[in-house]
């Protein structure tokens, strides 16, 4: 892991057509990267929301950068539906890969393990399964016949992007108990992390800190972005700014409103 990188340079690591994994709203969304990604403009992105998407994915969709979304849900939580996503669905503007939370985790876990697929229960008889020709159903080879089981192929994103509390000088990142962030990093080819701060202490110095640390081995680039999850919160850090989320939800109901919101907050961000 090199020294920290400025946010626009981190965004430039993204190339058109990449598959990008993004975390659930409460786990550490690198909102700081959102405007930089939009400014950078690499499009045709395939998003994987781990396991659900929100503001960040919605803004990338609104900015026209997204080709497909694999997710278990897309929502702004208390602030309502994801307006750009909903618009894109209605207009057929994005490819939908509707999933269910554990299926996204199962796909990432398969990649983490270098396995071609994971088996999971549930799903049989759902329209979620019916619309996923990329999944397979086999009869459980350990059963006496019958017993259908769904196989989820490995999801190996090109890049995982998330926000965390801190990194140390060696590039280790403290993620605490938000271990889906580790899973994303294990599964992805490259991982970009923004952090609130870089600390001088080695995160492996004590077992207490090591327990919540994602090793630098899995981290390819780090940027410093204080309050970088805003308007989302940071687990164990600061709460979400629900007023701002509602402001976005209201503004983005129209394409013009979304553009205005983007111009507004983009100017503030840069």
């Amino acid at each position, binding site marked *: 892991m090199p020294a920290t990188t400025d946010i626009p340079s981190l965004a430039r690591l993204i190339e058109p057509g990449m598959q990008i994994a993004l975390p659930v709203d409460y786990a550490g969304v690198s909102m700081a990267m959102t405007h930089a990604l939009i400014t950078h403009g690499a499009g045709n992105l395939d998003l994987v929301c781990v396991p659900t998407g929100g503001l960040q994915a919605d803004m990338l969709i609104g900015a026209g950068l997204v080709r497909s979304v694999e997710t*278990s849900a897309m929502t702004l939580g208390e602030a309502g539906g994801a307006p750009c996503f909903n618009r894109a669905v209605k207009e057929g503007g994005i490819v939908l890969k509707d999933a269910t939370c554990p299926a996204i985790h199962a796909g990432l876990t398969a990649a983490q393990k270098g396995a071609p697929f994971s088996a999971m229960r549930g*799903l049989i008889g759902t329209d*979620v399964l019916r619309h996923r020709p990329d999944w397979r159903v086999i009869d459980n080879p350990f059963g006496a016949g019958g017993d259908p089981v769904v196989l989820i192929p490995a999801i190996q994103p090109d890049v995982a992007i998330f926000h965390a509390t801190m990194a140390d000088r060696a590039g280790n990142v403290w993620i605490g108990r938000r271990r889906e962030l580790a899973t994303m990093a294990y599964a992805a080819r490259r991982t970009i992390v923004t952090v609130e701060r870089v600390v001088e202490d080695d995160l492996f110095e004590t077992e207490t800190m090591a327990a919540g640390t994602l090793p630098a081995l899995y981290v390819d680039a780090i940027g410093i972005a204080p309050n970088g999850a805003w308007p989302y919160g940071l687990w164990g850090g600061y709460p979400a700014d629900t007023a701002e989320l509602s402001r976005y939800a209201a503004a983005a109901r129209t394409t013009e409103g979304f553009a205005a919101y983007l111009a507004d907050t983009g100017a503030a961000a840069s």
Partner: protein
Amino acid sequence: MTPSSPRETLITTIAGLLDGVRHVAVGASSPIPAAGAMLLRAMSEVAGAPPVRISILGSVRHNFFTNGSVELFDCAGQGRIDAFFLSGGQIDGQGNVNLVGVGDYPQTKVRWPGSFGAAYLYFVVPRVILFREDHTPRIFVDKVDFISAPGTSPEGVYRSGGPYALLTGLGLFDFDAARPGFRLRSIHPGHDLTEITDATGFAFAHDAAPAATPPPDAATLALLRGRVLDELSETYPDFAAQLQRETSEDA
């Protein structure tokens, strides 16, 4: 004490539906189910019954998972979650739930957030309580447009869980997996059978004169308005304030 509000009756009903569970998981934006679970926990404690564990997803304070967001599903797969709540944009008479949208998928006319974990949890959590406060024929349809999670599964499909009850703002239904279908158990105070029939797009079984949903008794109400409200306001401050306003003497 002012009489119980409709929401207090819902919360109390949920506590009753959860009777006997050891571990219940609640979604981050489900204050009424959370309140029901908290009430059960308080009641169990008062009664000296075995403790009730509540996992509120997405809450830092009421989340006792340490393995990321996958742990809920792993935990359910291990059989360690006894009860869970599901809502639905559409719920049909077979117990099928639609969390995706109205119209032809994928370009649905109306799009809801998505299936979340329902396509898994409905299969492996023994007591799934369908909960939707609004009760209209647009929600309770004859057949859902998209099956996020099916009410029942053919024989030979691994399934240790499924729908247990359906609770709405009008009444409480039990689910009968054998039929399959719902049976009205009780009607909430202030409502009647005609109103429920009119508001429900699917046929359901019922007694000629269905019972009335019992409101909380005084002890329960005191617990709910005291300790439970305090607990609730930590995680759902807006909801707790609203609940308090509804039942305050000045209302």
